[in-house]
C-alpha cells in the first residue's frame, strides 16, 4: 500500500541517497555510483528517480546545493536530512530486531 506519505517514511531509494550524501557531498552521477557500490548493484537508482528525489529533498531542506560546475550540481546533506536519515535508520533497525525475534523463536 502506497498511501503513506513518502517524506514521512523514506523509500529505499531516498534512504540510499541520504546515505550516499552522508559520506560526502556529491553530484547526481556520483550518488548513483556510490549507491551501486554500497549495495553491490542490488539497488540501481534510475536517473529520473534520482533527480526526482534530489529535487524533493532540496525543496524539503534535506539537502542543499553547494556548487554548480557546468551541467554538474553538487549537493550536501543538511541537519534536517541527517535527522531524517537517523530516524529512518532507527526505524529499520527496530524492524530488523523485530524480525530477528521471530526468527529466533523459530516460528
Amino acid at each position, binding site marked *: 500500500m502506497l498511501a503513506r506519505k513518502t517524506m514521512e517514511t523514506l523509500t529505499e531509494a*531516498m534512504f540510499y541517497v541520504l546515505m550516499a550524501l552522508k559520506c560526502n557531498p556529491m553530484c547526481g*552521477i556520483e550518488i548513483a555510483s556510490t549507491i551501486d557500490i554500497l549495495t553491490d548493484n542490488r539497488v540501481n537508482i534510475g536517473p*529520473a528517480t534520482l533527480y526526482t528525489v534530489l529535487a524533493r529533498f532540496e525543496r524539503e531542506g534535506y539537502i542543499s546545493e553547494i556548487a554548480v560546475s557546468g551541467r554538474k550540481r553538487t549537493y550536501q546533506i543538511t541537519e534536517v536530512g541527517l535527522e531524517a536519515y537517523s530516524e529512518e535508520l532507527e526505524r529499520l533497525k527496530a524492524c530488523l530486531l523485530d524480525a530477528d525475534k521471530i526468527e529466533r523463536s523459530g516460528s
Partner: protein
Amino acid sequence: MKKDLKKITAPCSYMDIEEFQSWLEDMSRQGYLLTKPGKMRNAYLFHRISPLKTRYRLTPVSDDLEDWNERPDTEKRSLAEAFGWDYVCTVGGFHIYRSYNDEDRELNSDPQVLAEYLRQLRKKALISALAVLISPVLYLFIVGFLVGPGHFWQYLIRNGLMLFVSFSLLFLFTTFKGIYRSVKLAKLFRLLNARKLPIYYKDWKKGEKRFHIQTAFTYTIGVLLIISFSFYRVSSQDRLRFREHPEDSRNLPFVTVLNLAEFSDSQSAKRLEAGGMVNWTQVFSDVNYEWTEIVDVVSSDGREGRFSIELSYHEINSDWLADRLTNEYLKEAESTGTPRENNFAADVDLAYFYTDHRGCPAAVIRYDNTVIQVCFVRSDFEDAYLNLNAWIDLTVNMRQ
C-alpha cells in the same frame, strides 16, 4: 531528410503510459524512431530507420503545473544520458526518453517515488480543474450580488451571455481534461502501488479499438458543435411586423408620430445613419441594444408635440432566457401595481402596457426570442396616449 519523416497516429493516449511506451517500442522494431509530437492531436513524427530494439519511458515533467511543457534541464539530461537514456521530446506533461541498450538501468527505478510524484501532479490537476469549474458559479454569484437579484438576468443578457456561455464551456473542457488525466493516471497508480513499473506490455493493442472509438466520438462532437454554431445566426430581418390592434381604443386622444426628430445611440453609428431600427446580424452572441428616440407627434385633436422614448431591444438565443427577461420587465409592472393589459397587436407573442416606476407609460413586447421594452419617458401631452402602432410603423418603414 524530410522524406524520412513519417506522421503516424497513436493507437492510444500518452496518458495510457504502459500502452504508449509499448507502442513506441513496437514502432522502433518496425523501423520507426520517434522524433517529436505532430501538430495534430495523437499524431507523432517518426524517423525511418533500420528496425531496432529500443526502450521508451515516460516520466513526469514536474509536479509543478507551470512547468508542464518544459524541456528537462541540462542536469537532468546529462544524468539520464550518463545512464544511457536519451531525451526525445515532451508531450502533455511527460518527458519521453529512449534507451538502446537493454542492460541500462530503468529510468524510474522506484515505483514509490514515481507514485508520490504523480500523486502531487494529480492533486494539483484536480484542484486546478475544480477551481476552474467553480469560477463561473462564483462569477454568477458576484454579479448577482453586485447588480441585485431584480436585475440579474437583464445584466447578464446585456453583457454578453453567449460570451459567458462560451467561457463556461471552455472552463468545463479544462475541468474535464483535468478529471480525464486523473482517471487515466489511476490505472498507472494501480500498477505502481503493486510495486511494479510501467514496462513493455505485450497486450497493448487490446484497448486500440476503444481508443479510436473515443477519439472519433470526440471529434464528431467537436465538428457538430462547430457546424451548429456556424449555422446559428440571429437575424432581426422581417420580424417587426405588427398590426394595428382593431380594439385598441381608449378615451384618451391618440397622438401619431410625424417623424423621428432625434435619434440617440451611443453604441452604433451605423444605426444612426439608417435612422431607426436597422437590420443587424450577430453570430455567437445575443443582440442587445438600448437607445432613445425623440419623435415629433401630433395628437388626434390637432396639437403638435414631442415624445421621448427609451428602448431596450434584446434578441436572445434561448426561449428560456427570453422568458426570464420578459418576466424581469413585467415585475416592474407588478411593482407599480399597474394591471397588465395585453391588448396589443396580433403578430406578437405577448405585449403588455403598464406604468413604470417613474410613472411613465411603458410596454413590453415579445415575439419569438425578441424582447423589447419601450418607455415613454417624456411627453408634451399629459393627457395623450401614443399610438404605439404608428410608432412601430415608422421604425419599420425606416428600415425598409
